[in-house]
């Protein structure tokens, strides 16, 4: 049975049908890339799954439970973690504290007013940081981290929620090519080890073909192709709208 089942998702802005009848499934441990030219409806699709936008129609089910239209907080509680295109971390905290904060929230210990937060889940936080390769930087301020490290910190924070589904919006935007592959291979490894399903949008085709199990191609709000890297590469419709522009090497 699939972990995430999206059926007939629709969203219109004014007269523009941004997402038109999109359906797909995602299994535990699977990495699914959502690609398409600019304006194809990737982010809209993404934000409807993540709770940032309510869909006009359709259903989003996580392990059979309907989550469409819930707010981001409720969706987090259902076990969905996410990273943002523009990194969002807690700037007044150290790297470790960022992860501790996520762990505190996950364990429902937010409304405690007495015992210091610094000692809560420190070991668990360090373990997560070690997994993303930030163990040495645990004491540093997030404000001084390199951009690639910030992305990895976001990943650790998202994992702090012990998610079953991870949503990553343009996880490698703004990174150098070598860093991109490293981050996504790390994500790939974590997904396999922890059985976490990953849905991500991405512009870099090398990254997409390298790490994803399956690829969804959106164009003008509609799903035009679905399959593994080889199938997508060979798909004439995809070539027509997307790869045919000669942008196969990345970018858009």
């Amino acid at each position, binding site marked *: 049975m699939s972990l995430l089942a999206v059926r007939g998702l629709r969203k219109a802005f004014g007269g523009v049908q941004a997402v038109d009848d999109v359906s797909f499934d995602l299994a535990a441990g699977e990495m699914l890339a959502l690609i398409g030219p600019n304006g194809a409806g990737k982010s809209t699709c993404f934000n409807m799954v993540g709770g940032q936008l309510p869909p006009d129609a359709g259903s989003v089910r996580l392990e059979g439970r309907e989550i469409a239209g819930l707010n981001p907080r409720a969706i987090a509680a259902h076990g969905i973690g996410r990273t943002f295109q523009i990194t969002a971390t807690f700037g007044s905290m150290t790297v470790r504290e960022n992860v501790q904060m996520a762990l505190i929230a996950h364990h429902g210990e937010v409304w405690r007013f*007495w015992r210091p937060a610094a000692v809560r889940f420190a070991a668990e936080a360090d373990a997560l940081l070690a997994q993303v390769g930030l163990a040495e930087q645990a004491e540093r301020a997030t404000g001084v981290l390199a951009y690639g490290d910030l992305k990895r910190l976001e990943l650790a924070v998202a994992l702090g929620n012990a998610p079953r589904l991870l949503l990553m919006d343009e996880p490698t935007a703004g990174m150098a090519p070598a860093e991109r592959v490293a981050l996504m291979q790390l994500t790939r490894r974590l997904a396999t080890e922890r059985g976490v399903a990953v849905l991500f949008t991405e512009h870099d085709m090398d990254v997409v073909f390298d790490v994803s199990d399956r690829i969804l191609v959106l164009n003008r709000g509609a799903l035009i192709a679905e399959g593994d890297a080889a199938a997508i590469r060979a798909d004439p419709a995809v070539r027509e709208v997307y790869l045919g522009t000669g942008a196969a090497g990345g970018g858009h």
Partner: protein
Amino acid sequence: MLDLIVPQLLTGLAGASSLFLVASGLTIIFGVTRIVNFSHGSLTMLGAYLGWSILTRLPREPEWFILGILLTALCTALIGVMLELVVLRRVYRAPELFQLLATFGVVLILQDVTLWLWGPVELPLPRPRWLRGFVEILGNRFPLYDLVLIAIGPVVLGLLWLLMNRTRWGTLVRAATLDRDMVAALGVDQRLLFTSVFALGAGLAGLGGALSLPNASANLQIDLSVIVDAFVVVVVGGLGSLAGAFVASLLIGILQAFGIVLLPQSTLVLVFLVMAVVLVFRPNGLLGRPQAEAREMLAAAPVIRAAPPALRYLGLATLLLAASAPFWVGDYYLTVLTDGAVALLFAVSLHVMMGPGGMASFGHAAWFGIGAYAAGLLAQWLGTPMPLGLLAAPIAAGIVAALFGWFVVRLSGVYLSMLTLAFAQIVWAISFQWVGVTGGDNGLLGLWPEAWARGAATYYWIALALSVAVALLLRRMLYAPYGYALRAARDSAVRAEAIGLDVQHLRMVALVIAGAAAGLSGALFSYAKGGVFPTYISIPHSVEALLMVLLGGLQTMAGPIVGALVYTGLADILVRSTDLWRLVLGAVILLLVMAFPEGIAGAARRLWLRGREA
């Protein structure tokens, strides 16, 4: 019926015109520079005084009157230019709150300058005969001058519309209002644009002040009363929107005119309630747009770490010194120290809201006042003893904060600050206007501690113990999971929601806790002074709290404590040593904002950490 409505309507429209003149300047300045200019009311006040000086020297014919008014507007425009060049130009990059504080420094300075130049007596303009004329409308005699005023509002709106839509300069102003960064990227000389916008805004403020002369007088209360009304109009209309300011002026002007007839006790409350309701349904005002996200990343708040041991020892030593003060200082200094203890709690409570909570309150004195009146009224009605009064004060302030919080936690930035200011003005208006219960201006008197606590030393110890204990509890809370979550919600609301934090709920609880702590400080203050007065809730008192927090430093836990002590000491020295204490205080604020934007504790922290943190 009609003959009752029409005169009030006309009076309201005349009031609306004056309001619009001042508010239009404020909203244009805000639109382009993003500065909430507290000193705009002071420019109106200067307009009134300058207008008085100019008009009383000119012949009394209408054409000279018009010339004099225009000359006044020109003079205030020049003063505005000077203000922009000397002060504001240096704070455009500073955080919003510091800009506001800087303009409040200007308010203080201009107050003393005006007092020094024109003296404390209010100056009415002797009205020439043509100004005393009446027009008969529906059987009512209506002052000619009010009709002139009614006409001036739409005329000025029309002229401004032409200026904004038919000139290149106006196009730039509109573009900058929509997207300042983009205009800068296009290579427009921002300095010139800002200075000229400020000149226009200041000129409009001066025009408003001068035109109000025939109906009122030049007096030293204009600055704060005008600025509060203008804030309301600008916020209700939508920050940066001229048309919005016009609609809101009409709304507020008419509301005030009818309010005075229908509900004379609660006009002020009515006005601020309208503002609160508008902000709840339209968080960006009637015609305002959502604020464009600033593209430049704000400097990230520094990491808050536990205080180094040296600082703990210093704190402990200070506390021991403070506790032993009654053995080695006189009674006068004991009262100053008591004030200091109260100020400490007041500042620490605001810091919870503003620092970790990220909600800049311009009306923190409201909670102080609610606590004070809760204790005072209980003592008056039920003869409640002091310990119960000190218990009831934070509870009352906390309950009101919970009710008010429903409105406030969904807003952000300037709108949130303005709503807190509006709320404080509502509370102030109730304390001032509801004479039957609160004693109005005379306050509630005879609120003294019981005999056992009445000695200066005993009461000081009580105040010190309670303030320090609550401050330590709040500090403890900020290092606990709740404090971290609150800070997380401030640092990144989207990230906080994505890990399952309830941002609004977190902020709400912070507001209640901060309100309750401020309420306790208000009650402590009242028992020390023997009474409760509306001035506890005044704007200057709210600004005092802001000043203490920013003086000490917003991003350190010790900041508000240092700020409260330094401010109390400074104010005491200033008030005793010079008549021009406002001027000196204003200058100190400006210096602080320009030289130490991170506050005393923040600067100390930076020096301490230099080279210790990668």
